[in-house]
């Protein structure tokens, strides 16, 4: 059953997948509780524009994806704070705008091929050794930032005004949260795919919330659900020859439905 580990690309997919499975709910809990869940989809499309840039200029697309994603997340937060446009509309502009940018750039470079399909829907074979290093270092950076700013992230998510009165730099924390979300999305795209990453960030948290436990316990449950789904998803997709991202997300959706039924 475990002969799949003889292939180095599968080993890399597992390593990258598990790292992403750990980061996604850790950042997802703050996004879901702050009602920022939709920002993930916007950041995914922004990352796609970054990937297109990388393919166009023939540099590692992951590197350009996380650069563009981090930059755009700062712009999104500034536009949201400026109140010149409603915040959901600001997200819509970034989402469509960056998709348009990605499509145009790819059509110029003749890139409508397997590459694009893989980045949209995720694939086990897209994770190269360099990608693994990039995913690993950015992933650890995200986890370290969450650990360092954990108490501020919790307070700002719970009661932003009281946090500000207490002297917490709420604007910095908000921008940091969106930047971390951008980085998570960028590194998750090769495996899960730009169109599906939102599910991995949001659904494990939604499942964990159904258990009605403490904040810490909720994160732990979300982590367990996420890891289980990613590992099972990669196994199933390998043996049944299915899309990895699609399989992982379907497992998550099934678990979510079960968690709702359990509650009722």
């Amino acid at each position, binding site marked *: 059953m475990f002969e799949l580990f003889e292939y180095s690309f599968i080993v890399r997919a597992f390593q990258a997948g598990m790292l992403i499975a750990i980061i996604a709910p850790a950042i997802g809990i703050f996004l879901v*509780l702050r009602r920022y869940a939709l920002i993930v989809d916007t950041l995914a499309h922004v990352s796609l524009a970054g990937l297109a840039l990388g393919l166009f200029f023939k540099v590692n697309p992951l590197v350009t994806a996380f650069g563009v994603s981090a930059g755009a997340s700062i712009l999104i937060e500034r536009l949201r704070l400026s109140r010149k446009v409603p915040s959901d509309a600001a997200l819509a502009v970034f989402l469509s705008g960056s998709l348009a940018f990605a499509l145009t750039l790819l059509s110029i470079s003749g890139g409508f091929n397997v590459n694009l399909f893989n980045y949209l829907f995720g694939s086990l074979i897209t994770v190269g050794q360099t990608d693994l290093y990039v995913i690993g270092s950015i992933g650890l950076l995200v986890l370290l930032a969450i650990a*360092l*700013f954990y*108490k*501020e992230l*919790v*307070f700002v*998510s*719970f*009661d932003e*005004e*009281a*946090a*500000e*009165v*207490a*002297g*917490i*730099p709420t604007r910095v924390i908000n921008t940091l949260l969106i930047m971390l979300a951008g980085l998570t999305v960028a590194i998750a795209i090769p495996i899960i795919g730009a169109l599906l990453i939102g599910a991995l960030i949001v659904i494990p948290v939604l499942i*964990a*919330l159904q258990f*009605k*436990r*403490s*904040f*810490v*316990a*909720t994160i732990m449950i979300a982590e367990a659900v996420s890891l289980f789904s990613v590992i099972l998803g990669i196994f199933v997709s390998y043996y049944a020859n299915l899309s990895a991202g699609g399989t992982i997300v379907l497992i998550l959706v099934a678990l979510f439905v079960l968690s709702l039924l359990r509650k009722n």
Partner: protein
Amino acid sequence: MLLVSNREEILAVENVSFSYNGETDVLKDVSLSVMRRDYLGLIGPNGGGKTTLVKIMLGLLRASHGSARLFGISLRDSRERHKIGYVSQTAVKFDSLFPATVEEVVRMGRYGKRGLFRRLTAEDRAKTEEALAQVDMLAFRHRRVNDLSGGQKQRVFIARALAGEPSVIVLDEPTTGVDEETQEQFYTLLKDLNQRLSLTLMLVSHDLDRIAKEVSCIAVINTTLRYYDNPADAVALERSIEAHH
């Protein structure tokens, strides 16, 4: 009008005016001092600038003119902002999805004091327990906040403010949407904290008649501010002003 007293000034605004977009004044030349051990009621109609004044005193908004002070130092330059305890309306508008135990919420009261990059210590845990004991909620520490009654939730939020060892606690309309009996218990708790712990309180409300029975002094805000040393005077005078209009 400034209160002349030998007691220490904790929180103050002086000659504060505020307008959104430079148009109609929401606040006009407002001065107010909250002195140690005061139990001040800040009363005003909706749209009278009450929330704006509170936000300026908390440092959430900057006045167009005038200044806000904490312990005599400009609020903007103050390094002691964590000494302002704040009970926001989150207690009554609590996000029913947020997964948090009583202890987790009260611990947040220590976050501002501890500062960035520092983990909570044994002292923080002790202060959290002490704050819970002060509002008689220690037995509920492992319960989820969402499983508590409205009155119990309010106690948790007071405990969160207390945990930060504040010099003053500002409560923004804390009894909105809470039943009469719970309100009574809440006011009893506040009076007890003010008297037993000598805690300075600023209670924001729109209900002058009810608050006058509780507080030691009253400020009525409706763009401009009138200050009363004696709550009974506030009720009588505000009634006659209202009748006059």
